[in-house]
């Protein structure tokens, strides 16, 4: 597997958890420490740290400059990549559908004007 595909898998796994998505939503508003991130959830801080590790491995978040507070912040590029795959998937289907448009148009033409069937 190419490195890019590994990272993409990690991105999708990271996004597949609702707690991690909530963490990302909070970080979209600005950086935050582990304590601050743990506040809205009823799970323990170590559990939050586990989620943060998954997000860091997927390069979705990074650790800020402050060595003591170690705030987390969003890294936006991998998210763009994840939606790029959905977009590519959409483009492949759109290529099919444009061919289908042409076929349906042909099927609706009066018989006399229809092109002979291609081999």
């Amino acid at each position, binding site marked *: *597997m190419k490195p890019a*595909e590994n990272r*993409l*898998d990690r*991105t*999708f*796994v990271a*996004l*597949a958890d609702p707690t991690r998505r909530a963490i990302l939503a909070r970080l979209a508003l600005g950086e935050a420490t582990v304590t601050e991130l743990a506040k809205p959830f009823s799970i323990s801080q170590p559990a939050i740290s586990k989620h943060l590790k998954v997000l860091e491995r997927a390069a979705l978040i990074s650790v800020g400059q402050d060595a003591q507070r170690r705030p987390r912040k969003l890294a936006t590029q991998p998210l763009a990549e*994840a939606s790029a*795959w*959905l*977009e*590519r*998937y*959409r*483009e*492949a*289907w*759109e*290529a*099919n*559908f*444009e*061919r*289908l*448009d*042409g*076929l*349906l*148009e042909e*099927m*609706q033409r009066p018989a006399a004007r229809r092109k002979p069937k*291609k081999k």
Partner: protein
Amino acid sequence: MTTGFEKAQVTQPSDREVKVVRSFKAPRDLVYKAYTTPELVKRWMLGPPGWTMPVCEMDVRVGGKYRWRWRSDDNAKEFGFHGEWKEVSAPAKLVHSEFFDPGDVGGDMGEGSMITVEFTEDKGVTTMTSVMDFGNKRACDAAVATGMTDGMEQSYQLLDSLLAKR
């Protein structure tokens, strides 16, 4: 030549599903026919440029099976899908299983998916809604990111390399 009447929309209604919606300027029974007649399916269900469809066998009835194979123009490698219809309600609804056939391309898409395709018509415009249920988040994510695009990814890589050479 008719251009795309309404561009395909792809969404994820849940973590385990992918939904594709597209409208066509044609009556429903014609769209249904194009979806269920092998000679017609071969003409449009080809993915990105650079592929042909050497195998398109379809027995459209409950319990009937299908087999699709695509071959790359570039290196003659093949991959495909196969499965079985669970529900056939012409011209409104089709439900079928879909299993990846790695062929020469390889890759893995896990336990397969269940696909529900529905057609509705309003004043000569037919909307096709297709929902692919992969059964769990992991399989869905893997399919969108890698498995489902493995065969297509070859085409894009080839295109990228050709463009890079210019």
